[in-house]
């Protein structure tokens, strides 16, 4: 979706504002929002991110980071059937407990920061480091991780970096569900024209299905 969340290359968003001795959270409601959003059962980050992207653009820009999470949270509970709209509205459970979900435990939280011992995903690589590639020019309606600023541009594969599952809502035509992710180097001038520095570049992590040979 060509939404406002896809911000790379936009201008006039204001100066960098840094906060001295910034706390991790600025208020208790941010702590609780952070925890609840992370603890929603049986949903994955691509889905969570997409729900944030679906916040209407004017609201998205006006909201703080955790206001977006809080707004998306209610929608997620409704859309997944975990709570009814009336329950979100009132904050009161009407239908009783929602069954069949895996509730995050304290023990599981500890594993979030432990070494990852899960088996690595595997897939056949169709590109290799050093190869010139073009980012496909596509404009899917749903969730995608292919930013607009890179579509149609030519770059060079820097590293075969990982094997991951595609996160797009619509994966038709993008190849296998599990595929290699490459870091692709785009010269700043390829992306932004002659005024960009000749030395600079942007590296984008890209699933194989986003690429074609160039």
């Amino acid at each position, binding site marked *: 979706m060509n939404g406002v969340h*896809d911000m*790379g290359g*936009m*201008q006039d*968003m*204001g100066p*960098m504002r*840094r906060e001295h001795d910034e706390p991790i959270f600025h208020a208790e*409601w*941010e702590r*609780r929002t952070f*925890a*609840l959003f992370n*603890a929603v*059962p049986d*949903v*994955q*980050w*691509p*889905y969570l991110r997409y729900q944030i992207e*679906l*916040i209407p653009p004017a*609201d998205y820009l*006006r909201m703080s*980071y955790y*206001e977006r999470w809080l707004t998306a949270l209610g*929608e997620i*509970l409704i859309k997944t059937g*975990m*709570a009814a709209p009336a*329950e*979100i509205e009132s*904050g*009161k459970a009407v*239908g009783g*407990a*929602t069954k069949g*979900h*895996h*509730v*995050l*435990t*304290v023990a599981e939280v500890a594993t979030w*920061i432990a*070494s*990852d011992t899960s088996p690595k995903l595997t897939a056949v690589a169709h590109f290799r480091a050093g190869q010139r590639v073009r980012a496909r020019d596509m404009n899917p309606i749903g969730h995608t*991780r292919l*930013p607009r600023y890179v579509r149609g541009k030519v770059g060079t594969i820097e*590293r075969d970096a*990982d094997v*991951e*599952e*595609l996160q797009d*809502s619509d994966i038709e035509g993008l190849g296998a569900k599990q595929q290699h992710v490459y870091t692709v180097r785009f010269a*700043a001038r390829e992306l*932004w024209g002659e005024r960009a*520095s000749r030395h600079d*570049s*942007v590296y984008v*992590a890209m699933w194989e299905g986003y690429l074609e040979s160039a």
Partner: protein
Amino acid sequence: MTSTTRRDLLTGALTTAAGVAATAGQARAEEPGHDHDHQAVPSDPALRVRALESLMVAKGLVDRAALDALIDTYEHKVGPHNGARAVARAWLDPAFKQRLLTDCVAAIAELGLGGETAMIVVENTSKVHNLVVCTLCSCYPWSTLGLPPVWYKSAAYRSRSVIDPRGVLREFGLEPTEDVEVRVWDSTADLRYLVLPERPTGTENMREAELAALVTRDAMVGVAKVTPPREGAHA
């Protein structure tokens, strides 16, 4: 945000990302009741989140102890001190540095650090300056650096870092000369990035813990350099 794969693993997800996302997209398109008008900015986030938490507890969707553990983990257990340990070790141990640059996840596991499923360390030198951003949301190596600061999540940083990295760096007080190659890393997949900053001069006799104390979050995102210790600050 943290990685998808890890979350999949932990929750034993019932719903595929693609499936649910597609359904959700359709739902919004087809149900006027869930359209824009109903997604207002929460008027009082504190009240709103309290109500949602009570509801989620009552519905048996969350365990309050796990919520508290999540907050404690990301507020107190992880933070830039984790990444700083890896940086300091890399400065002192060339073999470790090599492992860090080629297989970061395995290398940081040697230090007892984890939480990232895929991560690349990019090295700053006198000729190369690296800068990390996530233009699409705010992906960041939570387990290695803690939660990101507000500026990292801001529209200004997300939009400008890729098109005007030198302008952004200038606002952070850095001015790489024209011959320095600025490399911007956009965190578009579940691959996270950590900048290995240059070791400052004047640190030749420092031990690992002393070096780690010099390494800041900003230096590991690429918006600052590690500054040498002040004269006489250590023996």
